[in-house]
């Protein structure tokens, strides 16, 4: 009966929808905060390296291709091609993470950090000093002296990088989880467990992988390309 295959697919699609809404919440938050700090967000996004983002986009698109080729090979009971394409997908995923590593280390060096850790000093509007909200109740900041000029500062840059790290971080975590699952499927494929009669795990991990790619398809323009 195709009942079990269909059921598993429905289950995986339902899980993917939960991921869409999970990430979607972050997209909505990003959208709202961008509306709040348009100038700071544009300025902050200049610090992102476009070519690295574009490279990662290309790498993930290729990995989606190798993934669907792996599923295709499993459908045709071709063990060697399955293993090859699964391995290529994992390689692409690792390249993605390596590029990410370089991006992140550059950010840490320059002080483009999330929230209260933001320490970059070269912005056109000065960034507000970092505040730890959960400490506010016990250590409230000192009241400004009467008559002292009010410092104009903005939280927009820190907020941009908060979202940058949250979204690319959560996405990166999903890539990592994907690598783990892909490795497990690769091992099973190498043992010859999948054929045209049974290739459900390959298909399901493929669906997951394509979603991870899709999230990046939206992430890339919003963070790296928006004017």
């Amino acid at each position, binding site marked *: 009966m195709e009942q079990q*295959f269909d059921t598993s697919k429905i289950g995986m699609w339902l899980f993917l929808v939960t991921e*869409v809404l999970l990430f979607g*919440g972050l997209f909505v938050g990003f959208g709202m905060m961008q509306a709040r700090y348009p100038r700071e967000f544009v300025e902050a996004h200049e610090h992102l390296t476009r070519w690295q983002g574009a490279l990662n986009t290309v790498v993930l698109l290729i990995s989606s*291709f190798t993934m669907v*080729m792996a599923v*295709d090979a499993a*459908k045709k009971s071709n063990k060697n091609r399955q293993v090859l394409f699964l391995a290529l997908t994992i390689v692409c995923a690792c390249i993605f993470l390596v590029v990410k590593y370089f991006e992140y280390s550059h950010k840490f060096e320059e002080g483009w950090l999330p929230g209260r850790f933001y320490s970059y000093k070269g912005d056109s509007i000065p960034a507000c000093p970092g505040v730890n909200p959960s400490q506010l109740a016990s250590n409230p900041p000192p009241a400004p002296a009467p008559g002292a000029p009010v410092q104009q500062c903005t939280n927009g840059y820190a907020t941009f990088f908060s979202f940058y790290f949250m979204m690319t971080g959560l996405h990166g975590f999903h890539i990592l989880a994907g690598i783990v699952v892909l490795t497990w499927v690769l091992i099973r494929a190498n043992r010859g467990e999948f054929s045209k*009669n049974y290739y459900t795990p390959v298909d399901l991990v493929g669906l997951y992988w394509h979603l991870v790619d899709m999230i990046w398809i939206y992430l890339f*323009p919003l963070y790296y*390309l928006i004017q």
Partner: protein
Amino acid sequence: MSTQTEIADRHAQAGEHDHGGPALYAKTLIALLILTAITVAAAYVDLGSGNVVVALTIATIKAMLVALFFMHLLWDKPVNAIIAMAGFLFLGIFLMFCLLDFDSRNNYFPANFKGPAADMPLAPGTAPQGQVIRTNPAAEGEKK
């Protein structure tokens, strides 16, 4: 575990052979790469607020290519596509209502408001500086 599921899935996947195929997947990849190039190039052209629209439209086209071809939605049973669309639909609802709120936030005064009268509170954003705001002169008189 494998044997039982193998038997169960045996006939399942027989009908799946005639969809997709390496040639179609390769064409889809090329289309995706071309669209990526277009979207990067478009970012260097200043279209004002049109930039966001272009970028998101291209992203959506790419996402649909991935969904329909790589994720097989074009050839699957409709229930999977319905589930997928429901996810994006409700995300859209969330975004839309939040934007509805935020975009109409600064309309403090009703459309027929004619302007501040002598003893109306000051405009939002300015501090009273120690002024007493008289809301109901009669009540004030009683209390004093």
